[in-house]
């Protein structure tokens, strides 16, 4: 995968493996910590709330340690690229707008946000002429509005635009 247009790797598989194993280790520690707080032993009426999660946390930590050791033991030289710089840019160029999109859903409602999101995507990454961008992005939101609000009667988040159009 990384050989084609990806260019030089942004960081190696080894780094990614180590980071992921560390992530699991922290998670396992959190689970153990909270289970101990809740009580992981027995009371008169049976096992306490932390009884089962405690062992889950222990297994997470043990497997994370094994994975961490395996990642550390892997030769530094041989490690392939996890993601190329070009690929990472492409992935982030989708991920970041999506994050902004989710913020916008809360502010201006899902329909207006979706219209902007699809439009931006088509214009920026697809380089479509404006009339196509406008037609597809608005058409898409109208179709979803009809399916959810009209047909299935499932209300989705709406914002000032819908209030202005009296669609609440």
């Amino acid at each position, binding site marked *: *995968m990384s050989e*084609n*247009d990806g260019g030089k790797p942004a960081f190696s*598989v080894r780094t*990614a*493996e180590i980071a*992921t194993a560390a992530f*699991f280790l922290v*998670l396992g520690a959190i*689970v153990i910590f*909270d*289970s101990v707080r*809740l009580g992981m032993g*027995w009371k008169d009426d*049976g*096992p*306490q*709330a932390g*009884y*089962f*999660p405690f062992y*889950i946390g222990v*297994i*997470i930590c043990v*497997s*994370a340690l*094994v*994975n961490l050791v*395996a990642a550390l033991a892997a030769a530094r030289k041989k490690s392939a690229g*996890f*993601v*190329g710089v070009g*690929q990472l840019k*492409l*992935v982030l160029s*989708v*991920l970041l707008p*999506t*994050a902004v*999109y*989710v913020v916008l*859903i809360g502010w201006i409602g*899902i329909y207006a946000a*979706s219209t902007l*999101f*699809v439009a*931006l*995507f*088509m214009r920026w990454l*697809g380089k*479509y002429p404006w009339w196509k961008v406008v037609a*597809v992005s608005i058409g*898409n939101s109208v179709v*979803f509005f009809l399916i*959810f609000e009209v047909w*299935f009667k*499932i*209300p*989705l*988040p709406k914002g000032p635009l819908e209030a202005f159009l009296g669609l609440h």
Partner: protein
Amino acid sequence: MDEIQSLMQGFAIALTLKNVALMFTGIILGVIIGVLPGLGGANGVAILLPLTFSMAQSPGGTTSAIILLSCIYWGALFGGAITSILFNIPGEPWSVATTFDGYPLAQKGRAGAALAAAFTSSFVGALVAVIVITFLSPIVANFALEFGPPEFFAVYLLTFCAFVGMSKEPPFKTLATMMLGFALASVGTDPVTGTLRLTFGSTHLLTGFDFLIAVIGLFGIGEILLTLEEGLAFKGAQAKMNLKVVLETWKELPKYWLTSIRSSVVGCFMGIVPGGATPASFMSYGVARRFSKDGDKFGTGMVEGVVAPETAAHAAGTAALLPMLTLGVPGSPTAAVLLGGLLIWGLQPGPLLFVEQKDFVWGLIASMYLGNIVGLIVVLTCVPLFAAILRVPFSVIAPIIMVICAIGAYTVHNSIFDVWMMLVFGVVGYVFKKLQYPLAPLVLAIVLGDRAESSFRQSMLVAQGDMTVFFSNALVGSLTGLALFLLFWPLLALLIARFRGR
């Protein structure tokens, strides 16, 4: 024959105009979902699940709802073959083996033959599995009626240990994601004592993590991010599909009857064992290559090389519903989502379903026969249409799929926080997939976590903390023993390999 009679009643339920219409809708939606990158059986069903909430409340509505959702599943299974053969992109993990001979066939200009062979053998595999379900599931359910908490926990244990023992991914990675699933499942209110666990004062976490959000994020967003890396364009072969090609292929297919039978058996067996569809397709491809007289030509575009994995994958995908219905233990992520649907509609999956919800169970089983017939007709006639969807540029399809995923995540609990969680799960899914952390055990653990935990705690309560309860009789003992064997299988395999090496 009680089963035949029950099945006939099931057909009477499934063959109403409304339910047949739902079958067509489900299959068409399913194929579209299977063809689109980023949408597959599991997250497609998860996104559409909220649409069935109101449907399931009317009398008999749960049967209609499960027919719709299971047909989406069959459709997605069929759709996976289209992308594998025409575009060399496996839509689902179990379609990977189909690309080995399917794509070369398409390059040779025999795409139509490859597709016709794939669809027909999918149908055969599914049919065999449905027949197995029809006759085996009442027996299994009857047997499981006697199960107590220790037996159920042993079944859960077997399910999860099978993942460790049988997946291609490193065992400790499987273990790590699986336990992450259990940890996520325990977030929220403890079902037994009512205490809050792992919420750390956050009100959003009170109800815990919903597995539907996880499925949409892990399989949907994660998959789109992966697809993006490959660039924004798909290059695919043209499919020429007409009656002549289909009939010619059908004339050729009976030659491979032995391969079909072998693959169906492998598929059914592996499907009942959890996580089986993907290994089943590979195994069946390998077996066919070894036994075929043209074995050395496999990989260059042999019809037989399409028949083998497709039959097995469909048989396994269908057979995965058997443990879901009879024991409440799903064999695949999609079966897990269907199980989640059952729970939301207020049905309790497990052996009692066969006693208390006869109409539902037999309606579903009958719809499996009909749904696959409908599916075969739809895909054979509409392939060019579905392939056209993939020719829509990714810069248009990708944002629309993102929007669909966001809406799907929102509608589960009407919460924007869930949409954020979906995005987080998407990044997690992307990284995990690249690092070979398997996602299926993670999803299954989120779904089954609470039930596995309560059966464990109940067994412990009865036995006063004595672990030997899991070996207290022959049944539970052999289940636990088999589970432990599978759990330690990677280690044993390593030792055997070492021993032989010396």
